[in-house]
């Protein structure tokens, strides 16, 4: 029985608040360019170690 180290690539889609340029409105109702936050789906990659066995 031989043991091997392998890694599984796991891609996860997570929702994150990402700063984007947009238009903000101040308390007096005046519009100006500024930073607003949008929920965006970001793909994150993880590698998870696993030991497998075979009959080699």
């Amino acid at each position: 029985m031989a043991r091997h180290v392998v890694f599984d690539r796991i891609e996860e889609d997570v929702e994150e608040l990402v700063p984007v340029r947009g238009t903000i409105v101040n308390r007096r109702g005046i519009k100006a360019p500024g930073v607003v936050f949008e929920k965006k789906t970001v793909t994150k990659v993880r590698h998870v170690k696993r030991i497998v066995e075979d009959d080699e």
Partner: protein
Amino acid sequence: MTTWLEIANGDVDQDSPVTQPLMTGLRDNVRAAAEGATGAPVLSAGWHPFDKSDTDSTEVGDVYDFSDDGTVSTITSPTFEDGYEYAFIFDGVSSSNASATALNISLYRDTTAAYSSAIPIMSGLTSNTELIFGTLQVQLPRVARWMHSTKWIAKGHTIIGVTLTLTSGVDATISTAAKQTVSAARFSFDLGSFDAGTIRMIRRREYISG
């Protein structure tokens, strides 16, 4: 060292005040990141553990650690990502078989969809008490090429006991039938299994493949 300030989304959203700590953080964070201050993101242009994104995370790029993984016959690296090139730090790696003569690397060729044959990166091993050290770079694996090569960037050597430099590493070149990328490396001995030491994977940014 300059202090890194973690700026929360709530500190820079609409109607948030421009405070003195916020402005200081915005000024100092560039310098703090350049210095690698605690909490700053890892600068991807320099060698860093493949799984470490912030300087205060505990990841060290472990691919193999005998104390965790035990005796294994092959070690397959995590998948290489576009935009990075990779290197492996061998620290006290050894074969379980006294007749082993070579530590080999195989590279996974994406178009061929198979590993290359095993090519020696350390040859002339003479003992199962021989320990291997060094840092091996896999050069630009994500750039499609006819040939992919490895190079010892911290010279690969072995020791038995306290005797230094019995064996030197060799650079491997793998040719392919079609221009293609490489997405993983696999290590093995010609005889026996890994039964000591650690292997760590580090990477740095290149701007050719992505």
